[in-house]
């Protein structure tokens, strides 16, 4: 089972600064394990970020993205208390969805 993401969303003016940490091996298919066998490709293919249900980012990733990826984006027109939902899907069909609430400017 995929581990939860860590999502931070904080308001800066009317822009929400969203930072997402994901836990994923992001295997390129070129690494060998301790036994010398090739570790099959395993990477996040699709990332969708929604703001109050509206898609604000729909990204297609490849195995070029690092292990345990970090994604940062800025969402215009956000207000404190808004909901940010992040979903990733990997090439094995594994999925993970987590959500965060936009925090007021600090």
């Amino acid at each position, binding site marked *: 089972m995929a*581990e939860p993401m860590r999502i931070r969303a904080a308001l800066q003016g009317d822009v929400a600064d969203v930072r997402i940490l994901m836990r994923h091996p992001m295997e390129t298919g070129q690494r060998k394990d301790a036994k010398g066998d090739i570790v099959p490709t395993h990477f996040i293919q699709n990332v969708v970020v929604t703001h109050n249900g509206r898609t604000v980012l729909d990204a297609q990733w490849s195995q070029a993205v690092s292990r345990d990826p970090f994604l940062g984006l800025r969402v215009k027109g956000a207000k404190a208390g808004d909901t940010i939902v992040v979903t990733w899907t990997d090439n094995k069909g594994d999925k993970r969805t987590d959500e965060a609430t936009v925090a007021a400017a600090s």
Partner: protein
Amino acid sequence: MFMTRGRLAALALALLASPIAAQDGPDGLAVGRQMLAEDNPGELWVARGQRLFFEKRGPKKASLESCDLGLGPGKVEGAFAQLPRYFADTDKVQDLESRLMTCMVTLQGFTTEDILRNRFGTLDNDSDMEALVSFIGSKSNGMKMNVPLRHAKEAEAYKAGEYLFHRRSGPLDFSCATCHADQGRRIRLQELPNMTDSKQVQTVVATGWPAYRGTQATVRTMQHRLYDCNWQMRLPDLGYASDMSIALTSYLNHRGNGGVVQLPGVRR
């Protein structure tokens, strides 16, 4: 937080004005370190460690909630800041990792061999120990290191650690002090903390380990740091949770008393 344009420009100017300082000091690198620290992947280990701590695991199907880390059963807040310390039930001075091992064996029924096999995570296998240490370390954040030196065995471990720190040995005739008792030393680009300087030892002890290692894609613990230092000195492998590792940790952590904990760290 994102840097303002003004600060970026000021930084660029500072870099132009003093290329030598940028090479020697952490000025330019500090920006990158700051960004890494704000979104430290180590937080993912903290979350996993928290789950593992409360999960019923092992042959005895027990959680670690009744594990006594020195401040009473199940109390994790502030535990890291007061370790290593003497434990009456094992009649030993134990650091966080050896204490967790005791709990995992006695409460959860894991075997020592199982724990040792999984002590350091690899790209293929995550280490439960690294996650648990991250979680417990983070529970002392904001507190000051306050390692006790009351019991005779604690004093003994401290003295042994001090001796080991300065004792030169092995084919390279190195001691810890060879690299860690001077100002401004480094291995390639890695600055080496001077452990004889009280400010630096406080910083290392309170914010150093456990830390997410970018090059290893996992959190590494103090035991791993000492193991790796030993290897770099071409000494025989340092046993995990061995008396020697705990003596060195006792010495360093006690000298780090007063440092404000902020864990997990993040390192190259």
